[in-house]
């Protein structure tokens, strides 16, 4: 009988246990997690902060669900040591033998080593406990450091709670990893008209205050604030993996093959802690998003059970709700594509804006603001690598078109 041990309790780990239980109701599963909470949705944390989602709604599972699924949980314990030659691991309390080990250790929020970052009043938004801590602190004047998707969502959420919020971004534009310059400036405009102060191109030099945060200094100004929220990115938790000799890649994540196997036999890894292959380019990439983690968990679970399932690669896919306006980014940005010859199809219509990036007649990325219908078809065209010329040919021919009617929603984005 196999014994499967999973380290982690996030999206990837839970998707893995669900997949295992769906196909094998008997195999013993042991789950280790640092937090003693059942699975919750990390993506909804900003919504909880704003008060639009109750704290209890965040939890996807209850502790009793793990019992029902016959999972032995070790929540609140950390794995101290893994012995790869004997296939055992030690949690300080007990030693457990495993046949398959799945690492889904995830990531943690990164706080840059700025002077004053350890003062009370500095927070991150990564776990439910962080949210609880922010609520207890009762912020009024908030500085959000970083303008990734978490940064923007948190800023909006805290403003909804009645705080005065300033966003400081190091790069020249907001949302630098997922949006190009033009759509980013449009989102910037939306944020400023709603009363957020957005500062770009400035570095936070220090956080000052006697007992707690009182102000933050950038290279150009001094911003008074009582709370600093760091949304400057995340770092993979790979320390345990590298300690036992699992290879990590240049980007800092665990290296896995397309079956989610690490370089050590019978150890698999999935979720935020790995480097996954980019579906569009084939290069390794860090894709630390919820849907990718879930899919990777599934793939790891299948391969643990002995069924060969190959991971098709990760694709970036972010949906932001900015004051009720849907902003979507999928695939790659112009920056990520680099020097390649990019053809850009842009369009706008009242409050809607879209931009499609084509390389070599294939869709490599799309960004849209104020649009939510028709993007799924674009996503499918991007994933299947359908040439745009073929798409247009199909649409022009009535007989062909009737057979591929799902192309129609994408038509308006791809008109030359």
């Amino acid at each position, binding site marked *: 009988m196999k014994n499967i041990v999973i380290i982690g309790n996030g999206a990837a780990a839970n998707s893995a246990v669900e997949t295992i239980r769906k196909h094998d109701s008997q195999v013993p599963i042991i789950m280790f997690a640092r937090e003693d909470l059942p699975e919750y*949705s990390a*993506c*909804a944390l900003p*919504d909880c902060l704003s008060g*639009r*989602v109750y704290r209890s*709604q965040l939890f*996807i599972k209850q502790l009793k669900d793990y019992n029902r699924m016959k999972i032995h949980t070790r929540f609140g314990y950390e794995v101290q040591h893994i012995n790869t030659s004997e296939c055992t691991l030690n949690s300080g309390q007990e030693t457990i033998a495993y046949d398959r080990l799945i690492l889904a250790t995830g990531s943690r929020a990164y706080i840059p080593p700025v002077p004053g970052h350890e003062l009370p009043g500095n927070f991150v938004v990564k776990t439910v406990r962080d949210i609880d801590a922010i609520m207890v602190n009762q912020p009024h004047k908030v500085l959000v450091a970083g303008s990734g998707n978490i940064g923007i969502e948190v800023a909006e959420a805290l403003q909804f709670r009645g705080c005065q919020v300033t966003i400081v971004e190091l790069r020249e534009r907001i949302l630098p990893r997922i949006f190009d310059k033009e759509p980013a400036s449009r989102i910037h405009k939306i944020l400023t008209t709603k009363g957020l102060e957005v500062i770009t191109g400035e570095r936070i030099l220090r956080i000052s205050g006697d007992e707690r945060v009182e102000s933050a200094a950038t290279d150009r100004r001094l911003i008074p604030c009582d709370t600093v929220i760091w949304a400057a990115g995340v770092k993979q938790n790979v320390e345990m993996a590298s300690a036992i000799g699992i290879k990590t890649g240049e980007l800092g994540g665990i290296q896995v093959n397309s079956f989610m196997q690490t370089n050590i036999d019978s150890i698999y890894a999935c979720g935020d802690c790995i480097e996954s292959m980019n579906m569009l380019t084939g290069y390794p990439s860090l894709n630390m998003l*919820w*849907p990718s983690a*879930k*899919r990777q968990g599934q793939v790891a679970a299948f391969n643990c059970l002995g069924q060969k399932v190959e991971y098709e690669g990760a694709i970036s*896919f972010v*949906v932001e*709700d900015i004051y009720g306006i*849907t902003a*979507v980014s*999928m695939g790659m940005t112009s920056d990520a594509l680099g020097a390649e010859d990019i053809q850009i199809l842009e369009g706008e219509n009242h409050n809607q804006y879209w931009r499609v990036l084509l390389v070599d007649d294939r869709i490599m990325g799309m960004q849209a603001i104020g649009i*939510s*219908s*028709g*993007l*799924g*078809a674009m*996503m*499918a065209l991007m994933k299947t690598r359908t040439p745009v010329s073929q798409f247009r040919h199909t649409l022009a021919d*009535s007989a062909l*078109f*009737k057979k591929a*009617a*799902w192309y*129609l*929603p994408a038509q308006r984005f791809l008109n030359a």
Partner: protein
Amino acid sequence: MNKQLLIDSSKCTGCGLCELACAISKTRQCQPQLARIKVWRDETRGIFVPMTCLQCENPPCANACLMNVISKENDKGLTVRRLEACIGCRACQVSCPFDASRYDYIEDVVVNCDHCEGNPECVKYCPSGALQYCSLAEAIDCLRNVEAKKRCIDSGL
């Protein structure tokens, strides 16, 4: 035998009754944009394609959902949602290749077709027979009849 919602787009005239019937029965609002079914229209060429949730076997919406709201119902093969946990983030809507998830702005949730518990309202109102609710065996029979009729006409019988 499980019944399926079958769409024959060649029979669709684009009248939009299915959209209205769905919106009224589900939300009590006479607004086609709230319907779980939508007719994609190309008026210039006269092509009308009703699109609704196709109940995919491995749904991309379930994978995209941030709250694990969406799951497959095992016995009927339907894609179902626990709407009380939905936060209306629209990730599923954007990930659906068929654009079949609909945002219900009244309830702030995203919904999909649930076959009206085995009695789809849209089928009752479809005047041209483009929408049918039948088992797979019936559907195959129907196709066979159509094909037979076509061959008879082709050979002059």
